[in-house]
Each structure stands twice: as structure tokens, then as C-alpha cells.
């Protein structure tokens, strides 16, 4: 079973769904999870994801930025960054929580998921698209902190230079 999971998310609803989904996974299967977040400067997307697991308090997830004139260039940067992070973390599973448009097939180029599966021999899980009731509940302010889970270990708060593309 998967024990070291790398989660790549953006600020979309799918990213939030992936966040909750993988939290459940880590608790049940006692897995270690690392989050990295995509910031696409060219599209003006500057969402930030805060980890809210009480064990480590609220902190900024690892963020990496992709730039480039074309979608293919940005996708390739994104895939390279994820693959590099997966190798650094020695992940045995990569979870993608990106907006569906980013994962969809382009007219003339492969999508992120196809590029990633072609580049690295690690299982890839595409997070559920729909906002389940659990995700919707997680988006509401919590009345109190949930029970701390020692199974979840988050990456360092500071950016890893190897993951940052400016």
C-alpha cells in the first residue's frame, strides 16, 4: 500500500477536494504526505493553500511557480517539478488535484497527466472532480480542531529551491 504520497494541488475546488481526500487516506493507511502547490503566474492565479492540520499549525504549503509563453511550456515545467519533487521525497504515489482544464487533453499536446505518467514510473491518482459533502463540510469554518493525526507529516514551510521555478 502507498506510504509516501506527494500531493500537487492548485487553488481550485478540485485541489480542495484532493486535500480532504488525501487527509482521509493518510489517516486510514498511516501514510506520510507532502503537499506542493502550483502558482501559475501567467494566468494570474495566486491562490494559496494553507495546511490546517493541528499537529503543525497553519503554515504555507510548498509553492512552486510555473511561467512560460505557451501552455505546453508551462505544463512541461509543472510536470518536471512534480517529478523532481517525487524523486526527492521518494514518493510511491502522486496525487494530482488540479482544475479539470489543466488536466484535460490539449489539441496538439499531451496533458499534464500524460506527460507525468510518461516521465516517471510512479502510480498517479487523479483526485475526484466533484465536491463531495465531506469537501463542502471541510470548507466551512471548523468549530474546533479535529483530533490530531500523527500519521500526517507535512513538508517544510519554506520553499525548497529545487521546486521553485521563477
Amino acid at each position, binding site marked *: 500500500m502507498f506510504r509516501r504520497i506527494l500531493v500537487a494541488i492548485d487553488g481550485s475546488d478540485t485541489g480542495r477536494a484532493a486535500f480532504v481526500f488525501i487527509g482521509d487516506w493518510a489517516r*486510514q493507511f498511516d501514510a506520510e504526505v507532502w503537499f506542493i502547490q502550483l502558482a501559475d503566474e501567467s494566468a494570474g492565479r495566486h491562490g494559496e493553500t494553507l495546511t490546517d492540520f493541528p499537529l503543525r499549525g497553519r503554515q504555507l504549503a510548498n509553492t512552486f511557480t510555473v511561467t512560460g509563453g505557451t501552455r505546453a511550456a508551462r505544463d512541461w515545467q509543472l510536470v518536471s517539478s512534480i517529478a523532481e519533487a517525487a524523486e526527492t521525497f521518494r514518493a510511491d504515489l502522486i496525487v494530482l488535484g488540479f482544475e479539470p482544464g489543466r488536466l484535460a487533453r490539449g489539441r496538439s499536446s499531451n496533458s499534464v497527466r*500524460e506527460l507525468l505518467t*510518461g516521465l516517471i514510473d510512479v502510480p*498517479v*491518482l487523479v483526485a475526484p472532480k466533484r465536491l463531495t459533502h465531506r469537501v463542502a463540510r471541510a470548507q466551512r469554518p471548523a468549530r474546533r480542531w479535529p483530533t490530531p493525526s500523527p500519521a500526517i507529516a507535512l513538508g517544510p514551510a519554506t520553499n525548497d529551491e529545487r521546486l521553485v521555478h521563477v
Partner: protein
Amino acid sequence: MFENVVVGATDSEGAVRAVRSAIEVARASGGTLHLVMATRRRRRMTVVHDRRTQDIGLDPTESLLAEFERMAAQESVRVQTHPLFSDPVEGMTKVAAAEDADLIVVGSASAQGGRRLSAVPKAVMDLADCAVLVV
């Protein structure tokens, strides 16, 4: 967490890997494994006898499903089989929707240093609402 896990079952290397992973996930989470074997046409084994082709009634898909069932039973996983005469993508996504699946597991072909996605896993990822695991 994964009460219903759907996996596409064929005789390809990637599909066998997918079935093994799906069994592992279902066993760890105590869920039910749904084996979907969707083919566009019935492939029956035939023999030639007295210059005439004779259908001996053996269906390779049934024996493959039985083999996968046996693999799951060894791991004490509950199994439901869904042999369908339909498009594989349509079959898997329909079963996933009907069973309110939490996860669909699909296989990929091995390539140099990585893997290659065929049309089926790509389409499943496009159409499925639940999580899709590519192994």
C-alpha cells in the same frame, strides 16, 4: 474509505497490475471490489473440425474473471463481477456511477522509463467523477 473500488479487467499486463493494486486497496480499506470486464464483442474460442469451425463454448473472459476472483478471494476481498458487452470506458464509468464508487483503478502500458496511457485510462479520467488511480 474506499467502500467500492472499480477496476477494469482484461488480459493485458497493465490491467493485471491494476487488478492487483485494486485488490490491495480494497483489502486495506475493507471495501468491495467490482471487476468490470467490458468487451465490444464476444470472443469465443473455436476449433476446426472436419474443415468446419466449431464453437466449443469456452469464453476466455469468463476464465479470466474467475482467475481474478480467485486472486481477490485469497486476500479475503469481497468481489462483484460485471461482465459487459459494451465499450470498456462506458462500462467502467457506468458501473462506478451505479455502485457509487470511491475509486477506479486503471492500468497503463510500460514504456521507456515511464508508462504510456492508452485511450481507455485517458477517457476514464475525463469522464469519471470519482478518483482515478493509474498504476
